[in-house]
């Protein structure tokens, strides 16, 4: 590195206008006052005003139902395998006699919502689009036990979220993808 390659940068010189300070301060005050008179507030008033979340928001899980109201899950364990937090616990059982389209169904399906990291890998892994993350964000509970969601609870989340019209993006507003089309 030679002295020629060094470029010396000087502070920009202040002229008479800047040296007088007052005009610059007046400009600044004008900006401040403009903001006071015309505030461009973008604050959401949360409890009264619900936030508009994108459909691919990763909130509380739900277990989807099919057209007959049965759980779509086929108890393949792919979500539980994909889960990095090991928060999904499934006990599979032979499907009831009337269910012609599958061999197994989940006898229990438990998600520990406290262990879950809401990464969405379960819904990516699911071959039948049976598990999904919804836009429910205000998940609260008074005890740890309360936060362990069983099958009924997860199915009730489906009932809750389809009614509100907040379908996650994967189910394309109630229509399942081709992979989810099971042979009848």
């Amino acid at each position, binding site marked *: *590195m*030679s*002295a020629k390659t*060094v470029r*010396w*940068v*000087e*502070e920009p*010189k*202040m*002229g*008479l206008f800047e*040296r*007088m*300070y*007052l005009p610059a*301060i007046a400009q*600044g*005050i004008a*900006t*401040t*006052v403009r*903001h*006071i008179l015309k*505030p*461009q*507030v*973008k*604050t959401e*008033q949360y409890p009264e005003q619900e936030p508009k979340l994108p459909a691919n928001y990763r909130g509380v899980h739900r277990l989807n139902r099919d057209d007959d109201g049965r759980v779509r899950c086929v108890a393949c364990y792919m979500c539980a395998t994909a889960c990095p937090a090991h928060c999904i616990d499934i006990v599979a059982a032979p499907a009831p006699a009337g269910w012609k389209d599958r061999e197994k169904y989940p006898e229990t399906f438990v998600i520990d919502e406290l262990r879950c990291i809401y990464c969405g890998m379960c819904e990516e892994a699911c071959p039948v689009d049976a598990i999904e993350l919804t836009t429910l964000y205000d998940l609260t509970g008074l005890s740890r036990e309360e936060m362990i969601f069983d099958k009924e609870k997860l199915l009730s989340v489906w009932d809750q979220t389809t009614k509100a019209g907040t379908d996650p993006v994967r189910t394309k507003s109630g229509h399942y993808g081709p992979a989810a089309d099971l042979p009848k």
Partner: protein
Amino acid sequence: MTDFDFTYAVILMVVVFAAIMGSVAYLTFAERKISAWVQDRIGPNRVGPWGLLQVAADGLKFFFKEDIIPKHVDRVFYFLAPGIGVATALLAFSIVPFGPSTPAPGPVGVTAEKPLDAAIAQHEADVKSYHEHTIFALAPGLDIGILFAFAIGSLVVYGIILGGWSSNSKYSLLGSLRSSAQIISYEIPLGMSVLGVFLFAGSVNLEKILDYQIHHGWFILYQPLGFLLFIVSVYAECNRLPFDLPEAEQELVGGFHTEYGSMKLGLLLMVDYIHMITTSFFMAIIFFGGWHFPGLSNIDGIGGMVVKFLILGAKVFFFLMLYMIVRWTIPRFKFDQLMALAWQVMIPLAMVNLVSVMIVKEYQLTPWILTVTSIVTFLAAAVISTREKLTVIQRPVNAAHSA
């Protein structure tokens, strides 16, 4: 001696104290709201309608918080500091005529026609008539007037310095150190900026200064430079941005009040706001004619009193709002910059201003000359500072580094 109405004095004190504390509370609210608007936020809006009860929530919170005293503090001064701060700040307000006022009686000259006895008798009669009407000041007719406020106002800084020092923490100490650096910078221009006003009014009594302006026009017309120096100095005295060096929350955690909590912190925070109210009154009364407004000050009776209150209140409100707006406009000075501003710019300007006032007084010239000299002085100062050469010291590039 004048008769002293104890009941009236106590009632007045209680009312004024309550009014100041109420204003302080709502100033904190206004501060939060205005800062929110400037930053395109909403601000406190949850407690009460439009958040108006937020101040009650804040105050109660201060009272009910656990009073934590760190082990390493110097207990005596740690407790003393907030008290000194608030007490002196309130004391400085005592001379402010916060309503319609009449000038206090001046000295009566002894002449051949008026021997000493007669002069004394006349003076006592003057004082008696002065005290007979309703007086809106806690210490009316105090002859040292604003000098008292300056003296007591400077003591507020001791609260800050003591608090920072007794906290026995580096951040607090740095805060109070800066506060001491600040006080030796702004005190001199603060005093000098109003000397011109004193020369004109012939008194340091606020009521007399006000009375002079009613007859001769507001001092902002003749002393714009004095007002500029005064407002800059009082911003420094109130520790308001751009001169809030002792707090400097981005650098010093909380500055001098880092180690304070609960109501002691509340008191320390109150000091600034009490000071803001007092100095806003000073600016309104010394430079903007107090309750005087052309065409509106000749109303008599209760109505006139209300109008005068409103005029003075509006002026004070304007200066309080200016405090808040300036806070969000100008970034903080470093303390060497503050010292340079005070010693190299403001003190010379104040001296030039003072000398020009003296010349005008000596040769009985029209005071309008001072308006011109103020502007000329200001421009001259700007030109002089522009001529200053700012050069970067070009260090030689080390040859060993060359490839």
